[in-house]
């Protein structure tokens, strides 16, 4: 039973670099939270502070009911998986798994039972006598996971554990971690720079930038209702298209206009944009919410195809509309299309996003 609570957490490196700024985060017991953001956003530093490998400049960290600010890592009852596995190279896989338990003076019989159980879950039985050097990357990472499981800690911490694996293995290990969390529900914090990993693994996703938390929410929330333009652009692949538009609201109709593009917006969007009449705004459209064809009246525009990326299951189009580059996804793979073609692109009504150009916050109806 261990919830994690971060309050007003800060990390300064000297006087020049403020790596983590006022981070507040509540992680429920048994919850799997993914910390995601571009490199240098403070996510790894935050994780290392939870682990106790990094001092806290100010703020509080609680694990369960204890404030752990000044506790050394060994007393926090946590386990951590590192990017480069961090297996003890001079020990066999068995000794690697046993290391933590031996430090706790657990009896060898109990250690053997715990290792048997973990090895069964992760398929490590044949590897127990080997040295880490004799294992492949995926096997090493499974041993690192095993080392966490046998200790049966209150919290699992993952520091970009899949970054060193190739794409196929990464997808496999993702599923394995998910299965593991279902089998042994333990509070987990998973740091990654890959938004796909964060979305697929996290019960909730925390997006960070420049040391600040941008948004905390379920994968569906951060995808559907991004808290600002950064989150909108960071979550989702291919990334959201952004177009600088001018809002025109006259009579009953609200339109947004840009070079080569004029779209009619309705419903909640029109009400929200009413205050921006004559002013600039940023329109965001996810590539998967655009489609070829006329679509609803006033919802389409002409585009000039520049690059065609055939993925087999679908086509990705890089198009140009006036001075803007716009990506269109989910074009059926059989579509006959070539670069240089002119196409009609339509947006799905109600799935456009609008942001204030100054604050970059979403424009919503009051």
């Amino acid at each position: 039973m261990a919830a994690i609570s971060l309050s007003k957490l800060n990390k300064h490196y000297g006087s020049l670099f403020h790596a983590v700024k006022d981070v507040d985060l509540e992680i429920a017991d048994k919850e799997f939270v993914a910390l995601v953001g571009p490199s240098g956003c403070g996510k790894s530093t935050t994780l290392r502070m939870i682990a106790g490998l990094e001092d806290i400049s100010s703020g509080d960290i609680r694990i369960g009911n204890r404030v752990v600010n000044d506790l050394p890592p060994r007393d926090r009852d946590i386990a951590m998986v590192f990017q480069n596995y961090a297996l003890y190279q001079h020990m066999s896989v068995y000794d690697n798994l046993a290391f933590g338990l031996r430090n706790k003076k657990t009896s060898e019989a109990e250690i053997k039972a715990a290792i048997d159980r973990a090895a069964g879950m992760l398929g490590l039985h044949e590897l127990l006598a080997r040295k880490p050097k004799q294992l492949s990357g995926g096997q090493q990472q499974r041993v690192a996971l095993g080392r966490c499981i046998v200790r049966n800690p209150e919290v699992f911490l993952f520091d970009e554990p899949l970054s060193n694996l190739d794409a196929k293995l990464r997808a496999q290990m993702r599923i394995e971690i998910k299965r593991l969390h279902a089998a042994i529900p333990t509070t987990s914090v998973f740091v990654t720079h890959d938004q796909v990993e964060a979305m697929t693994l996290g019960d909730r996703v925390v997006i960070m930038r420049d040391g600040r938390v941008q948004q905390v929410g379920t994968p569906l929330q951060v995808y559907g209702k991004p808290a600002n333009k950064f989150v909108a652009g960071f979550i989702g692949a291919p990334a959201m298209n952004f177009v600088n538009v001018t809002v025109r609201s006259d009579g009953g109709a609200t339109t947004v206009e840009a070079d080569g593009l004029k779209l009619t917006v309705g419903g909640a969007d029109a009400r929200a944009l009413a205050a921006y009449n004559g002013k600039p705004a940023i329109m965001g459209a996810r590539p998967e919410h655009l489609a070829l064809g006329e679509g609803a009246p006033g919802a389409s525009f002409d585009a000039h195809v520049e690059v065609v990326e055939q993925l087999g299951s679908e086509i990705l189009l890089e198009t140009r509309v006036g001075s803007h580059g716009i990506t269109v996804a989910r074009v059926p793979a059989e579509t006959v299309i070539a670069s240089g073609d002119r196409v009609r692109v339509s947006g799905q009504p109600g799935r456009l996003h609008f942001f204030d150009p100054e604050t970059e916050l979403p424009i919503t109806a009051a």
Partner: protein
Amino acid sequence: MPIVSRPDFLPGLPKWSRKTLFALALFGICFAFAFPVLWLILTSLRPESGVYYVHRGTEFTLASFAEVLTDDRIVSAFLNSALISTLATIFSLLVTVSSGYMLSRFTGPASRIWFGTIYVFRCIPYISWVLPLYFVTQSWGLYDTYTGLLLPHVAVHICFFSWLMKGFFDGIDPSMEYAAMIDGCTRWGAFIRVAIPSALPAISALAVLCWLFTWNEFLFALILTGNRVPMITVVMAQFVTEMGLRWNLMAATAVMALVPAFLVALFGQKYVIRGLRI
């Protein structure tokens, strides 16, 4: 890939002549290094009358070795050198390994000051340490004692080899130690139980280098010791007397001094190569 088969090694020649040339060059280089040693061994096996005509004459004898081995001063010099080399290696490693680790892992002011200190001392030419050390050992009453020779050696090792050790530790991923700290070790525990075992090839290499360095050292031994603690390198040089040069005895002592160094180098070289590659 063997050098001989590389196409850019004398590309115009046929393969057999490339191989021959390569073998000749190899032989030439080995010969240049081995010749003085071979000459030394030859000299040590000649009677006193034959040392100036090592290249001719067929008379060989082990008399020089017998004479040297029955000389108490030379035997005790051997023991002294072995003892000092071994002790210096042990003490230097104790400090060098932890100091190299600190330089590699910690960035605080203590680490920076230590870094600066050994940097400065490293810049001072080795030879200019000797005279001040002579006065210091004299005034502390350490002249011509084990301690008086051991301490300067350890100090020099620390300055020279902390850097090497820092380089070794830089090459070892620190997350292994973090994992150990999370797994229940203290910082020291992680250092001793995880960092040191992973650096063992490097530490063995360093031990070999330290030992050879002290065994072969001449200057400190000459200046900082007298009759009570003779060292083998100094004793060897003392066959130059007003009665003349006793080449055969000097050569016999030198050959015997070569043996331990040769053995250490022979058994240590695989560690040195592995260690230096980390």
